[in-house]
C-alpha cells in the first residue's frame, strides 16, 4: 500500500512558524534547505502587514467616534434642557395670565357685569389655554433629541442616524416659506 509523503516545508503553517522560531527551534532542515521557511516568513509578514492596516483603520474609526460622540450628546442634551425650560416658562406665564382672568371674572360676578366683557375674557382665557397646549410640543422635540442622544451614546454598536432637531442648518419658518415660494415660482 502506498503511503503519501508530505513535502518538506508544507507541514508547518505560516502561523506556527514564529512560535517555533521563538522557542529556539531551527527553521532549516538539516542539509540547509531554506526555501520553505522563507515562504512561511513572507506569509507571516504579509499577514502582519494586513493586520496592521486593519488595526490602523479601526483605530481611526474609534478616535473619530470618541471625539464626536460626547460633543454631540452634550449639544443634544443642552437643546433638550433649553426646550424643557422654555416650555415650562411659557406654560407658567400662560397659566398665570389665565388665572388673573379667572380672578377678574370671579370678581366681576359680585358687581355689575356685562355679557360682552365676560365673552371677551373667556376668549382670552381660551387663548391662554391653547398656548399651554401648544407649549407641550417640546415633548416631541425633546423626545426626538433624546433618541438621537441615545443613538450617539451607543454609536459604537448602533449606527447613528443623521438629521434630527439639531440647530445646525435648520431654517426658520420664514426661511422655509421663502424657499417654498422660490421653488414654486
Amino acid at each position, binding site marked *: 500500500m502506498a503511503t503519501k509523503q508530505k513535502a518538506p516545508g508544507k507541514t508547518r503553517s505560516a502561523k506556527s512558524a514564529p512560535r517555533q522560531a521563538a522557542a529556539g527551534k531551527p527553521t532549516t532542515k538539516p542539509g540547509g534547505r531554506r526555501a520553505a521557511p522563507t515562504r512561511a516568513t513572507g506569509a507571516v509578514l504579509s499577514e502582519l502587514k494586513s493586520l496592521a492596516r486593519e488595526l490602523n483603520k479601526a483605530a481611526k474609526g474609534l478616535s473619530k467616534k470618541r471625539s464626536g460622540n460626547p460633543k454631540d450628546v452634550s449639544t443634544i442634551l443642552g437643546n433638550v434642557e433649553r*426646550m424643557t425650560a422654555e416650555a415650562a416658562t411659557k406654560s407658567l406665564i400662560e397659566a398665570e395670565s389665565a388665572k388673573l382672568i379667572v380672578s377678574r371674572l370671579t370678581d366681576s360676578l359680585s358687581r355689575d357685569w356685562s355679557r360682552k366683557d365676560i365673552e371677551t375674557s373667556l376668549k382670552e382665557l*381660551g387663548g391662554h389655554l*391653547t*398656548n399651554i*397646549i*401648544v407649549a*407641550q*410640543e*417640546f*415633548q*416631541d*422635540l425633546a*423626545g*426626538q433629541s433624546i433618541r438621537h442622544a441615545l443613538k450617539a451614546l451607543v454609536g459604537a454598536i448602533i449606527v447613528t442616524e443623521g*438629521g*434630527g*432637531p439639531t440647530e445646525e*442648518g*435648520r*431654517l*426658520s*419658518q420664514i426661511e*422655509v416659506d421663502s*424657499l*417654498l415660494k422660490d*421653488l*414654486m415660482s
Partner: protein
Amino acid sequence: MLFAIRTDKTMPDRTSLKFLVVDDFSTMRRIVRNLLKELGFTNVDEAEDGAVALAKLRDGNFEFVVSDWNMPNMDGLTLLQNVRADARLKTVPFLMITAEAKKENIIAAAQAGASGYIVKPFTAATLQEKLDKIFEKMGI
C-alpha cells in the same frame, strides 16, 4: 409635483373635512388635534406612523393629511410619495409639520408634492395661516 391641491366641484366645506394626523408622538397628535378642533375641525383621526396612515388613507375617505416627517416604519416623506403615487389619494392636501428644517428637506418635500410645510416648534397662528393658504388654493 409642487403643492398638489384638490379643486373638484364636490369639495366639502372646511369644517366637515376629514383630517388624518400622523405623528409617532401621541403628545404631538393631541396638540394638533386640539388646534384643529379650535379651528372648527372635529372630524380628525390619528395614525402613529406612515404605514398605519397609508392603510387608513386607503380605507377611509380622508380629505386632509397633517404629517410628521421622522417616524418609524414609514417616514412622512415616504408616506407623501406613496400618497402622490396613489391614483385615489394623489390630490389629498398634505401638510408636513416637522422638526426637519434643512434646505434639502424642504426641497424634497416640495418635489414630492407637499401642500405646505411647518417647522417645529410652531404656533397655533402658523397652523391656521398654512391651513388657510391651502384652503384658498383648494377654493374653499
